[in-house]
């Protein structure tokens, strides 16, 4: 079973990389961009076959390792 975890910075947390990319995009002439925030995605393969169980276990992985909940939040999507 494949799953995708997306980890993004919480609102209000400064994102230097996002800002740098925004600057670079406008430097390249892409003028219509009003904000960029960078996050991470993890594509996992799990041996679970039950989506609920898979999701619960991946949630635990996020809490313990994949996200730093001081500044980040996460979403989990089971891709089947």
């Amino acid at each position, binding site marked *: 079973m494949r799953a995708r975890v997306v980890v993004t910075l919480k609102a209000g*947390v*400064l994102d*230097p*990389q996002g800002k*740098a990319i925004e600057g670079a995009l406008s430097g390249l002439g892409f003028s219509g961009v009003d904000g960029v925030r960078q996050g991470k995605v993890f594509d996992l393969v799990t041996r679970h076959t039950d989506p609920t169980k898979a999701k619960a276990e991946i949630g635990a992985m996020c809490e*313990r390792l994949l996200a*730093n909940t*001081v*500044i980040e939040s996460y979403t989990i999507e089971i891709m089947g």
Partner: protein
Amino acid sequence: MKAAVIVFPGSNRERDMARALKQAVGTPPAMVWHAETALPAGTDLVVLPGGFSYGDYLRCGAIAALSPIMSAVSEHAKRGGLVLGVCNGFQILCEARLLPGVLVRNAGVGFLCKPVHLRVETSASPFTRGYRRGERITVPIAHGEGNWVADSETVAKVEDRGLVAFRYCDERGRVSPGTSPNGATNEIAGLFNAKKNVLGLMPHPENAIEPAHGSTDGFGLFLSMAGALADA
């Protein structure tokens, strides 16, 4: 002083740290592999050195914070034992929640290696007692992710309780927005826990301990720790 330097896969400033510790107390520290579950008997100072533990993959310090030895380090800290984390060590301490907040990418995005000026915010700690409060010291930084951030409540708590050890300042010791090379909140370069027995800092005092380094200002930190432990 019985010091232990924890070596994680990817640590790379453990030798620099060991040299500084040896210079300060005469005996070399124990080098402890991260997979151990206990500290050497009688350890009174634990040091997490700089480097790129686990390649800094995922988040700096995140994977190392889960190493077997870290429970023992936590216990040591809880008992009031001294814990110092420098650079990657600071990042690990934050990820292990032994210090508040987290270190994110430098405001300028790139890695930066250069001497910086720090203002010593307090001499009332086992790590800084050899400095004068307000003293300006010069030590190098070498990091890409030294930008300390936390939610505003945490920042307020840190400031109210006087838990800031060092701030980035200018040549004349003045702190102002912009004197930090990495965008750190309130120009914070080094931070204590509530009991001031745990210190994390981004700059490298161990690389400013002899004339060859162009500055000996970092040695005060090692002498402070040695003094504090000798008095204890």
